């Protein structure tokens, strides 16, 4: 496992020892195969987008995220606003992403833990939003007609346009679909096993984990 992770230095800075990722190394196991560059880009973008969806739904800002870092004893990784901004700037889709290109495993793990901590704290709100989305979809209605969903979608779209480089082929429906997808993802992250789910989903571990770890 360690030899495989040593090859992940192309785009992620891996601290040593690699298994000292956190207090519970088995909860967020590391991949045994090198992660491709495209996957790493997706990971950095995905974590930033999930945080963006969380901010749009719950209204939390940098202060709330930093409080989560303090609660999770992750101050060494995310110490202040600048540190948090630098972490999120690793998303290549950011408009000003040229300032930071790397995200090590410790920082990715910290972001995963903070996302799941905040999602668990707002689980009831997330579930209500997903249930509302299901209801509106089943009835064939526009999700914007529901106040909670409408506010969420508007805030997400606006923030996305503010921070991200919007591809030319992106339509408003595409952003709406992305917001709904991230909303459903947040629901699955809002449980105690959410961190492991997100971690495995990021690295698509199921294909590469050694036997007995899945």
């Amino acid at each position, binding site marked *: 496992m360690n030899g495989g992770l040593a090859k992940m230095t192309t785009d992620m800075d891996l601290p040593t020892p690699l298994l000292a990722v956190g207090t519970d190394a088995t909860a967020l196991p590391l991949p045994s195969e090198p992660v491709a560059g495209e*996957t790493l880009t*997706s*990971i950095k*973008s*995905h974590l930033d987008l999930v945080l963006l969806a969380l901010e749009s739904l719950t209204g939390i800002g940098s202060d709330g995220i930093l409080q989560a870092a303090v609660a999770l004893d992750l101050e060494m990784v995310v110490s202040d606003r600048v540190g948090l901004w630098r972490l999120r700037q690793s998303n290549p889709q950011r408009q000003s992403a040229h300032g930071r290109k790397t995200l090590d495993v410790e920082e990715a793990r910290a972001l995963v833990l903070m996302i799941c901590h905040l999602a668990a704290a707002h689980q009831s709100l997330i*579930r209500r939003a*997903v*249930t509302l*989305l*299901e209801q509106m*979809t*089943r009835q064939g209605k526009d999700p914007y007609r529901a106040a909670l969903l409408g506010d969420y979608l508007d805030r997400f779209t606006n923030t996305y346009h503010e921070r991200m480089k919007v591809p030319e082929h992106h339509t408003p429906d595409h952003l709406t*679909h*992305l917001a*709904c*997808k991230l909303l*459903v*993802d947040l*629901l*699955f*992250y809002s*449980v105690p*096993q959410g961190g492991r*789910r*997100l971690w*495995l*989903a*990021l690295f*698509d*571990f*199921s*294909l590469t984990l050694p036997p007995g770890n*899945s």
Partner: protein
Amino acid sequence: MLTLTRQFHFPSCSLILQGRRALLQGWQRPPRSLQFELRLAPTEPGETELIRIQGSAEQLSQLQQVVQQYLTRSLLAPGGGMAVPLHAAPARVLKVQESVTLTQRGLLTHELTCGPLKTPHTQIELNATQLFDLANALDTYRQAQQTQQLFLPQPLPWRAIAATVALFTTVMAAGIFYWRRTSTPLPVATSPAIESMERETTPVIPPPPVARPTPLPTPQLPPELAGLEQLPVPAGVDVPARPQPPAHSAGQRPVSGERANTGENSTATIAGAETDPSTDAATGPQPTPTVPALPTLQGGTPERASEAPLAMGEATPTLPTEPLRLPASATDRPSLPTRDAIAQLKEIEQYFARQSHPTELPAQGVVYRLTVGRDGSLTRLRPMSAAAAAAVDRVGLPRLGAVFVSPLATPYRQAEVDVQLWPNGQVETRLESLQ
């Protein structure tokens, strides 16, 4: 075998596990024949029946892996779910699938193919929240299974055990106490607790007086005869045995309290007991005991035993030294009827005096026993002799059921009166009984 049940409940999904464990099997070992049942809330708003999926532990583990892989590989993967719409109708399955699969039909619609699982549905459409609850239930089961906390050893119900032991002990103690109390009577005389108790003030009938056994007479020979030589018994003559008193002599014969309670009767009874011929034969000639007059029930100064003119050496039965105290119920009992007790006797005489008596009655007269009812009617008529029976229709007897005297006093229900009619027209009545 113990049947163990573990349930995991989530808003739209419940997972129920049932396993059997031998009594001597350790808690750390997994139970045998673990079965599961998943109960999913219906997807459609109008449906009320739960969707049930059953299977074995292996099938449950397989389902858990399928759901986990589906989440991490498809649904939650970065960029996953972007190519599908929000909602899509599930595809129709034309043939039965061999294994459990989960397919994404839309961002909010997922299709679970049950495969070998026991369920009436071959395909189950799950929305996002149902899949979320199902994944949580399966993950919780997996965590409990890995930490060997699926069926935790049940703590012993110490409170119930303590309460049962206390109740059993109390019942046993009460039973032993009751058994001892009923089997061995308490020593009344030596019990300090009873001795210290105050005597009750309610009147108590004293025990009947018991006469002391009459001592046998021991005649003393005069000195001139005592010095003579005693002649031997001639041959062929049996020496009769000295007669022994019966087991209960007259002196030991108990006198019932009822007899001792009334004046005349008790005196007569005691006198009769003293003059019992069997007693006389047993004890031989004895001095006639002098019976003192019984104290009156009402009033009068009772005589003390020491003042009574009785001497124990004279074989005189002892009588109560203090006036008998009767309970209130006994003193209120009506005394035996006398001639003047009821006015009906005089009314009967007056009735027969008004009748015309035939002169051919026998010289000794005729006697009828009349039973008078409570209302003064004749309830029964009995001739006491053949002559009385022959003259029954000539002496002017009242008809049965006819009221011919006044009603009896309140406590009495009937009275038996003997009526003797003489040839000269004289009428005599005797009260035989009064009830």
